[in-house]
């Protein structure tokens, strides 16, 4: 019995040491904020939408989740940056959002990390469904509503509400409908 305990302690330490050596050799890349959320935040509980907390509140909650989810410091910071982007600076300041330039669909998809959670053109996350045929299948109006209020049809949706103007939403729907 005693021996067994010692053995497992030994194995754990040895294993740990070896793995450290290993990881130092591979400097792996941290994904985008949306990717990190896609990969980590639905593991224990429903992913909580960004609009539930202010940026300041997230900055206190994320270290709590860093420990729970075993995120690295860099990953935590990347998620925090993504939340800041999503809140478009001071999110309640409508003027701020309105003056954001209308970008092309691809750039908007990138800025808001759609592919962190959705696959598109064969690449992306799996937290949400693939977006390739979403306009054809569900209609432009549905997608427009979804982007305006992601929780409208699914109250437990993990999709974040994004500070998109209606012009930007039109661009996105057009972009997704072209496929």
């Amino acid at each position, binding site marked *: *019995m005693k021996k067994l*305990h010692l053995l*497992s*302690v030994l194995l*754990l330490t040895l*294993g*740990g040491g070896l*793995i*450290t050596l*290993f*990881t130092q050799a591979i400097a*792996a*890349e*941290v*994904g985008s904020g949306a*990717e*990190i959320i*896609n*990969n*980590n935040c*639905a*593991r*224990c*509980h*429903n*992913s*909580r*939408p960004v609009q*539930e*907390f*202010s*940026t*300041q*509140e997230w*900055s*206190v*909650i994320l*270290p*709590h989740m*860093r*420990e*729970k989810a*075993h*995120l*690295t*410091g*860099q*990953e935590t910071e990347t998620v925090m940056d993504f939340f*800041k982007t999503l809140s478009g600076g001071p999110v309640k300041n409508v003027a701020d959002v309105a003056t954001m330039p209308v970008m092309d669909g691809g750039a908007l998809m990138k800025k808001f990390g759609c592919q962190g959670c959705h696959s598109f053109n064969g690449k992306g*996350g*799996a937290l*949400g*469904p693939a977006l390739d045929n979403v306009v054809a299948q569900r209609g432009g109006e549905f997608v427009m509503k979804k982007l305006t209020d992601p*929780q409208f*049809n*699914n*109250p*437990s*949706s*993990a999709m974040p509400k994004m500070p998109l103007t209606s012009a930007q939403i039109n661009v996105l729907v057009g972009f997704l409908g072209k496929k």
Partner: protein
Amino acid sequence: MHTNIVKNHSIKLISCMSAYLISAASLAQPYDAGEQGRFVIAGYGDVKYEESDLLDSSAFSARFVPIFLFSLNDKMHVEAETEISLNEAGETEVELEYADIHYFLTDTTTVTVGKFLLPFGQFSANFHPSWINRTPWTPGIYGSHGSAQAMTPLLPILSDVGIAVQQTFFFTSQQKIFLDLYVTNGARAEAHNDGDEIIEDHAEDEEVVDEHTEAFPEVEFAATSGDNNKNKAFGGRIAYAFLPAIEIGASYYTAKYDEEERLSITAQGMDINVIGSRYLIRGEYILTETDGLEEADEHAEETINAFKRNGWYLQGVLQAGQIWPQLGGTELVVEYAKTNKFAKAKRWVAGLNYWLDPRSVIKFSYEETDIEEGDGDQRLAVQYSYGF
């Protein structure tokens, strides 16, 4: 005279309240008012209506579990959770679930000191809050604080005082190994009125189920700021995560629980967590080995006997609303739990959950427990739980 007193009181009340408000406001808004916050109250609460066959009762119960989070700086983060509930006698019970500080030593290493939930398996540290747990009950092999269940659990929700180190080994953003190690005060022999902490072994010839607890060494896990011996509990968990879909872990816990440091309790666990976009599968297996003293007849010496117990649970959740959109936040849950030796039992749980938003859920659950030698139970519960 009378009005004076009233005035006095209201002045006190107002000054108290404003002091509170001012301090709350100053806590919520750090003086530099930048993007970095300092203090957040989060947590969860629930209300449950439960009918139990065994207890022959039906009852409402409620809990409020605030979590206090402080971000002191980039490296230091304080967390504390208290559970406030009403017990059966109508008294308010307050329990300190955890109170600790994390020190983020490096990008991938975190040191935690204080009272924390032990990283043994997944349920204790990660799944037990009611807005996360898919049923209103603990999964059979874990004990619940609050309502007692018919099944004899293998371990309680483990929370103890000590130090823990966490290391994340980052291969790619989708493949990681999590390592947790800890040293804590550890388990104790359950105190008995007569001061005799050693329970005799009658396991072999036991028939009455109530007495299995007597035959089985009683070990108390509840944390204290002290220890009955010099020996500390030691343990850890190592897990492999293939994100976002699978996490598999192995856990270990060992402690000497008697004052003489002769008797030990060892627990080993395996856990699996599968996260689909339409389903979840969670399961854990626990094996415990508890030493007990066998008081032999006059001639022979006392011998130490190891009692082995094991059990497991497997839970499946189907997010029906993801398949049939008209069902919205509806989820179906099935859970099976089984314990072997010294209280053989099995339990089925079936449930239907409806999510109002990602953190509030109404659960309708039914469970049936079969105990091999003793009274089983059937329970029906409706629980409304919310995270905040």
